[in-house]
């Protein structure tokens, strides 16, 4: 890997050339930043990957079953496996999706599962992202550029090729397409992940569409062409549920498609991922995922959650209060690395304030044991330094559920910092899966 790492600066220049950026709003101003790339890849041996792969498929299959259930018969609630209040009070649970089964019964077509590895080698799931998980495009384009810089690295190491993501995604769209073209629906140029939207459109051969490009007529969706309009069969939306259709969700949304939900309800278009998936990737619901695996699949979970407590339960609340200082407190209403607080880092006043917030609205919070997750080497001019890193694995559900043999490894740019999100200044690495 040394030869590859010596090209780090050049690879970053190439990434700048291809506009590999993410957007960030600060004080109401939109700025685009390059996403720093570290050429020292995370390497996952084949046998370790096989276990992860099986566990990820199992987890996503269970999450899909859960979504089908909670928008249908709600058996998991009736059987007291998941409390009703936890599902129905989740902000991601959409009443307008009750009784609505998406094409082929698939809810989460593209799932981004965030994992960390502890120092003793165990993997833990930190978060499930089933709404609009982003990030696959970064290692995808980085791999292509790295291969150009150091072909020998890829000739001499038995690394599984990850460049098939576009085809995998295309298959996922084709599988649920209800007749017509595939489109990737973007809120536009000033979205944080716009690079990814446009890059994936190119990779999959789908049309990149914005709000004005799509309209609904007689419960069918059309792409507004110049000479003729084309029917749309599948929409890979990169926009949150609440902005998707102003006639169903937020009426003030100007980036949605009016009446899209009526076309979806009529079975004339697939929406990828399905609206309402927030019911399953709520930070509170995360606690129940291992139970879902056992309930729906009758199997022991292959992947473990980080040890998590729900203050909603009196016993857990008591534990959290007794051990507050050594836990990570997470606000279920926040995302993107925000609302994650290491209680030990707070001063007495702030800690007490947070403790009161947890006591006052326990449903809103979860608490987790701090996992001393592994650090990966990051190449800097002055030498390699260790940094905390996580892994977002991408699980795609089409005819069958498959795991993309790669993933987005994000690392923190500051020593000791466990927040790795790009919006918080983190960088990324390629993830190599070894074939043998």
């Amino acid at each position, binding site marked *: 890997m040394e030869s590859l790492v010596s090209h780090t600066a050049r690879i970053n220049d190439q990434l700048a*050339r291809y506009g590999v950026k993410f957007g960030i709003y600060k004080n109401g101003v939109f700025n685009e930043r390059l996403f720093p790339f570290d050429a020292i890849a995370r390497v996952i041996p084949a046998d370790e990957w096989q276990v992860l792969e099986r566990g990820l498929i199992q987890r996503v299959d269970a999450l899909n079953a859960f979504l089908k259930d909670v928008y249908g018969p709600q058996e998991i609630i009736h059987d007291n496996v998941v409390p009703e209040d936890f599902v129905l009070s989740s902000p991601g649970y959409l009443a307008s999706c009750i009784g609505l089964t998406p094409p082929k019964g698939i809810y989460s077509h593209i799932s981004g599962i965030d994992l960390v590895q502890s120092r003793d080698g165990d993997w833990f799931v930190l978060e499930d992202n089933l709404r609009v998980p982003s990030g696959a495009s970064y290692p995808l384009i980085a791999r292509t550029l790295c291969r150009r810089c150091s072909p020998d690295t890829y000739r001499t190491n038995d690394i599984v090729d990850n460049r098939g993501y576009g085809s995998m995604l295309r298959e996922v769209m084709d599988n649920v397409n209800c007749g017509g073209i595939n489109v990737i629906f973007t809120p536009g140029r000033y979205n944080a992940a716009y690079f990814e939207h*446009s890059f994936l459109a190119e990779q999959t051969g789908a049309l*990149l569409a914005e709000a004005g490009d799509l309209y609904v007529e007689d419960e069918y969706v059309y792409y507004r062409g*110049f000479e003729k309009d084309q029917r749309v069969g599948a929409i890979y939306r990169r926009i949150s549920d609440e902005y998707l259709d102003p006639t169903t969700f937020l009426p003030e949304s100007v980036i949605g498609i009016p009446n899209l939900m009526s076309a979806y309800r009529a079975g004339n278009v697939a929406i990828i991922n399905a609206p309402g998936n927030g019911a399953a990737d709520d930070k509170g619901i995360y606690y129940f995922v291992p139970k879902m695996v056992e309930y729906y699949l009758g199997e022991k979970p292959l992947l473990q959650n980080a040890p998590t407590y729900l203050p909603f339960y009196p016993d857990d609340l008591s534990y959290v209060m007794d051990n507050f200082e050594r836990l990570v407190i997470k606000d279920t209403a926040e995302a993107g690395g925000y609302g994650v607080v290491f209680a030990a880092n707070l001063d007495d006043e702030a800690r007490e304030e947070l403790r009161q917030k947890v006591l006052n609205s326990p449903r809103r919070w979860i608490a987790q044991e701090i996992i001393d997750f592994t650090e990966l080497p990051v190449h800097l001019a002055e030498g390699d330094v260790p940094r905390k890193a996580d892994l977002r694995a991408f699980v795609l559900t089409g005819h069958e559920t498959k795991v993309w043999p790669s993933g987005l490894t994000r690392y923190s740019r500051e020593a000791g910092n466990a927040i790795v999100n790009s919006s918080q200044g983190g960088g990324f690495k390629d993830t190599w899966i070894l074939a043998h």
Partner: protein
Amino acid sequence: MDSSALNKLSRLFWLGRYVERTLIEIDIMQQAYDQSIDGPAFDYVRFCEELEIPNVYESADDFLEKFLFSRKDPFSVISNLNYAYDNAIVLRESISSAALSYIQIAVNIMEAAAKNVAPMLSLQSITDMLYAFRSCSDDSIPEMGNRYTLKCGYSIERIDMYIRLNYHLEHLGQEFSRLNYRMQCTPLRRDGEKLMLLLGLAPNPDPTNNRMILLDCVEGLFVDV
């Protein structure tokens, strides 16, 4: 792509115009820089009048710097290049990442050149990248209507600038011929009256006397953009 939404065609057209405008303005600025070494100062006042842009410059030297690199000046070269980028960035799947990357490099070089003590050398690299973009996009845009919409943008801007600035008038006829062919290959609709007028004037455009009518025909030729 089977069919392009109007806004995509519009972006392609304007991408072509801004790329061409940047190329022409860089060419003019290179001449102006050279002239400023040992010749009379560049007549920027007249340049602004001909281009119909506000003269916000204090001197020829001030013009040379701000017209090239001021982001606050909406008519500067760097602003025009950024307008090209704004159109290109939303067309990635239509023009390809490869073609888009040349615009991105041009933007990166322009931003670096603004801080450079010898910016003229960098301007040559920007020109190289924009020509590379033209060549690459010609190869990578599969749909003929899209390809020629972009090219119509080049032609319209070139004719517009030739007329406004009395610049390379010897090539005006050739550019009219190019446009005549290109506009038959784009789905953009034309204003019939302006087209007839333009075709009538094309053999002997006489931009000195026909400036207003020519500019009106060229600017309003395509009714959709």
